[in-house]
């Protein structure tokens, strides 16, 4: 019984690691199958480059997005940290015990 449960446990772990399609589904449901094209005529500079990248390759656009998003979050989060620690708030320990 114990062995069977262990086997089941490791099978589930393997399933998670080897099934990226399932893992990706955690992000949400299917989007409607419409092709959206960005209108680059009114854009210039980085915005035009960005919209062109979107039109040319959703894959490259995705890679850049998942790099930029965490970096932006961390940069502005750290900025807030700097302000709060400058005020004197202890950002390393919590004060309250209990459930």
């Amino acid at each position, binding site marked *: 019984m114990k062995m069977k*449960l*262990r086997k089941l*446990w490791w099978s*589930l772990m393997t*399933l*998670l690691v080897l099934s990226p399609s*399932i893992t*990706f*589904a*955690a*992000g*949400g*449901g*299917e*989007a*409607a199958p419409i*092709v*959206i094209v*960005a*209108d680059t005529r*009114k*854009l210039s500079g980085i*915005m035009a480059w*960005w*919209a062109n990248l*979107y039109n040319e390759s*959703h*894959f490259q*656009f*995705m890679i*850049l*997005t*998942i790099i*930029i*998003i*965490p970096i*932006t*979050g*961390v*940069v*502005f*989060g*750290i*900025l*807030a*940290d700097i302000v*709060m620690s400058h*005020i*004197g*708030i*202890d*950002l*390393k*320990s*919590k*004060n*309250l*015990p*209990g*459930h």
Partner: protein
Amino acid sequence: MEWLYVLMPIAGVKIFWPGLIILGIGVGIIGGFFGMGGAWMVTPGLNILGFPMAFAIGTDIAHMAGKSLISTMRHGKFGNVDYKLGLIMLVGTVVGFEIGAQMVMWLERLGSVEKVVRWLYIALLAGIAWMVFHDVAKRRKMERAAAAKGETLDESVQGINWAATLHRIKIPPMVHLKEAGIYCSAWLPIIVSFLTGWLAGILGIGGGLIRMPALIYLIGCPTHVAVGTDLFEVAISGLYGAATYTWKGRTELVAAMIMLVGAAMGAQVGAVATKYIKGYGIRIAFGLAVVGCAVSILLKLVKPWLPAYARLLDNASTTLVLGLVTAMSIYIFVRMVQGAKRELAMKKNN
């Protein structure tokens, strides 16, 4: 006033960017405090700002990934994140979510399920709200009983303690979850996360609203650890979600980044506020947020029966959600400022 509007390069619409930052700050504070993504608050906000709905979900998920990551780091420093528990739960969440989403598609082929799903959501939210307030009422009763005897009730005593019963089920492998202070069968978090993931898949939501109370009442996490661990899961699933929606071309990254400026800073404020508010304080505020969410959905559900008031009901629902975001974020911010003032005064006295 043209400078207050920015052209979204993909969606091709001009959006009032300070509105995106304000919305980001609000949902960031609430997300960092309660440990949830908060899609139910963001979507009406984006709608009001004139954001095309085709991009709303993807943009919301993208900003959610960034803000959850930074608040997970903050909660991690406070010792509020049980990474082992988060990783174990990810297994159940992913499998459960996929099964739930497939079930909805299968049911859709049989007939319209949208209404059923919404009513199910209402029932679930009502159940969560009942659970939270029942727990709070029971704890208050215990406090009064202890006070009558001239004693003080220990901080760790809870009104509802279903988790203790579930911990007695010792099916191997057993796991020790250090931060959560739990020793239980690994199947408990897997099954709980499978069920919450399955429900999230059926309802088409991120799941933080369900997972946070499940972590407290079924797994037995202290409230602060439930918040931090849930955020860890939101960060991972948010990043996957951002990837998949962007691949489908449904993310307006410029809007997500503008929102993230406010949300990342707001999330830090929300995470730090948990330092100054007791677990039960967080639970009560969470219960109120759940009630607000349920009422806003209810207003949309009764629309077909009251067609003459359709517009009014829509506006009432949006106003309620945005009012709730404003009130909650102001409340959390004020509590954080009060706590920080106390902390600084204590430091000065020492």
